[in-house]
């Protein structure tokens, strides 16, 4: 299958292929054993370990890559960043999710933060000294940002945040949180530092990605100040949607990494497993499965890579990123399911890694807007009619 992958990657530049090769060597050596370790432990790495992992991927610019060099970032184009990110997801999807959250916090702070906020909050992220969680969903509010219930109340210069946030990645290890909440009668983003805000977190059990932190966060009059409002007060809805636009492509790429790993397992198994006197991969039915899997995977990858290119152009592309997100995440479920089927009984046991890829793939159609929400975004942009 290496020949198939290499042929497809001929569209990458020499520099992209070299970076990918170097990143792969590092990530396979450093992360493959850790992915196994945390899968078996069933919980994510602690904060200090996660910071050291962030520092490791930052050697390739995966934490700061989305912001320009003049702002202290690695300033990588999104296409190149995406190629490396997909590879990370293939090797350790749980870490990829944590990196996605941290790198998009970097992106948000750089885009929306003032000089003081950048000094206090962006710089420590660039140095992998602190961890940020971005808090949008709530128990009764899933993908629709307009309906968030968490409220922030001003008392002089102080702001007190009260509410409950759900499905918060990196929540347990976070040092501070960017909280989407109601302030001054509008949706706003407010930074709450754990030192002063003293918010609590509770790790949630998930069916997959058990090495990635997903938490419930509790803000009980969590204290922060007016200086911690990120961007415009009341402008949080637009700001959040802008973040989603980019993040959705990376959720799609996470799924592509997972599906790629599942496909590789399936091809290997189809060649190794002999039944009825020949490798099962020699049967037309199995080859049909594999051909479907690799075609859907490539289509999803190309949709995501187009999204990356559009983001780099700086044009509005929420339709295209929504297309990429729903298609890639749903296709990964399909592909991982087929990979399990090819493995037969072995596919549903802990003895083979394909079951982990299947469970991980299952998680991905939900975050950053479910498949149904993506379709409503696309439908609205096609018709001009809001069906939310």
């Amino acid at each position, binding site marked *: 299958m290496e020949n198939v992958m290499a042929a497809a990657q001929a569209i990458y530049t020499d520099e992209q292929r070299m970076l990918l090769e170097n990143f792969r060597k590092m990530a396979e050596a450093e992360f493959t054993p850790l992915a196994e370790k945390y899968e078996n432990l069933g919980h994510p790495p602690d904060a200090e370990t996660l910071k050291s992992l962030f520092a490791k991927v930052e050697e390739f610019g995966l934490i700061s890559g989305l912001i320009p060099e003049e702002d202290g970032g690695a300033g990588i184009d999104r296409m190149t960043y995406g190629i490396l990110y997909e590879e990370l997801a293939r090797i350790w999807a749980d870490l990829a999710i944590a990196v996605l959250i941290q790198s998009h916090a970097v992106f948000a702070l750089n885009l929306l933060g003032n000089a003081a906020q950048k000094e206090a909050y962006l710089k420590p992220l660039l140095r992998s000294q602190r961890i940020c969680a971005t808090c949008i969903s709530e128990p009764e509010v899933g993908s629709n940002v307009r309906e968030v219930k968490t409220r922030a109340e001003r008392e002089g210069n102080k702001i007190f945040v009260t509410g409950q946030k759900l499905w918060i990645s990196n929540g347990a290890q976070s040092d501070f949180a960017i909280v989407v909440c109601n302030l001054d009668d509008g949706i706003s983003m407010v930074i709450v530092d754990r030192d002063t805000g003293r918010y609590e977190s509770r790790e949630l059990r998930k069916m997959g990605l058990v090495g990635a932190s997903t938490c419930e966060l509790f803000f009980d009059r969590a204290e922060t100040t007016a200086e911690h409002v990120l961007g415009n007060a009341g402008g949080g809805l637009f700001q959040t949607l802008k973040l989603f636009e980019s993040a959705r492509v990376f959720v799609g790429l996470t799924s592509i990494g997972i599906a790629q790993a599942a496909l590789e397992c399936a091809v290997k198994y189809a060649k190794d497993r002999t*039944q009825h006197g020949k490798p099962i991969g020699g049967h037309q039915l199995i080859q049909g499965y594999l051909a479907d899997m690799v075609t859907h995977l490539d289509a999803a990858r190309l949709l995501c890579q187009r999204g990356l290119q559009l983001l780099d152009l700086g044009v509005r592309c929420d339709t295209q990123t929504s297309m990429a997100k729903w298609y890639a995440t749903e296709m990964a479920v399909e592909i991982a399911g087929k990979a399990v*089927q090819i493995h*037969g*009984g072995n*596919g*549903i046991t802990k003895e083979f890694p394909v*079951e982990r890829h*299947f469970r991980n793939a299952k998680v991905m159609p939900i975050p950053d807007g479910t498949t*149904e929400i993506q379709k409503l975004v696309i439908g609205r942009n096609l018709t001009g009619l809001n069906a939310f």
Partner: protein
Amino acid sequence: MTLTAFPPPAPDTDYDILRQEVRAFLAVELADFPPDMRAKSWNGFSRDFSRKLAQRGWVGMTFPREYGGHARSALERYVVSEELLAAGAPVISHWIADRQSGPLILAKGTEEQKRAIVPRIAAGELCFCIGMSEPDSGSDLAATRTVATEVEGGFRVNGTKVWTTYAHVADYMILFCRTDKSDDRHGGMSQFLIDLKATENIQISPIIDMAGEHHFNQVIFDDTFLPADALLGEKGEGWSQVMSELAFERSGPERFLSSFTLIEELIRLLGKDATEAQQAEIGRLSAHLMVLRQMSRSVARMLNEGKNPALQAAIVKDLGALFEQDVPRLARSLVSRPAVPGGRDSYAAVLAYTELAVPSFSLRGGTREILRGIIARGLGLR
């Protein structure tokens, strides 16, 4: 085979009284049985429940009275099975024995075997497992390597079986293995009735599934001695005996009701506030369920009439697994609520369990690919 070879099933109303009796029993027995336990469907294990069911005469229903059975029809047994599955009752303790091992012993066993074993199955006392698949012999059952060599007074067995459901708690295993070298790939196979509690040199170790649960086992036979009277049926006739079990195994309501608890939870959650789009999807789901039920009941009628509906059973199992596997996808598309294993939200907990259970539905009891090969052959394509 013609595509119309599914005769109409018996009228549903013929068994209304029995159905009401079973429902009343289940309403009491499972009053406090939570949805995430019901979601395990026929993988739920409770010896106590199986015994109580047997006391009502609903285990070994089709077995002759002289062997502790109740001489009822396969269609009556079908009604009971359907109600048990719809309620998510924990039935696996007696399920395999009642469905196929008991009928196999009655058909092929010696008089001693019948008298010793069958009444205890009908009493809900015995849990059976099936030693069939091996590490290198899954879909290709004829590649079985486990071998029973004839020795003085019996046989010595060596080999490894995998995916042996509930072997760690079962009382008996029906072992399928090689007893002779044969040029015919299907020849030289035999079946044995093994008392797992009284046989030495059998090592049973768990195989954990993707939900983290222990249903499957690896069973290693290390020079295991079996007495001569453990042979079940004719020596060398194992292949045809196994094949005749499959129609029983492949067409029952367990082949389309395994995700039923999730359907119930989904409908409960949507309730009267369901949107038009949600109502349409639930309607489509219900229509598929009803068609599958009619096809499955048609096969039950054929079995009851002594026919061999192996082909129709393969069709029901393949379509049934597709249906069962589609239920979580449909649930996710209708309700934006993530799956949470073991949580307080019963819908989320049932979804989490079912999501991880469904991949096995097109693997157990014959993979989708094998079934489609059987269907193709039945249509004259192979």
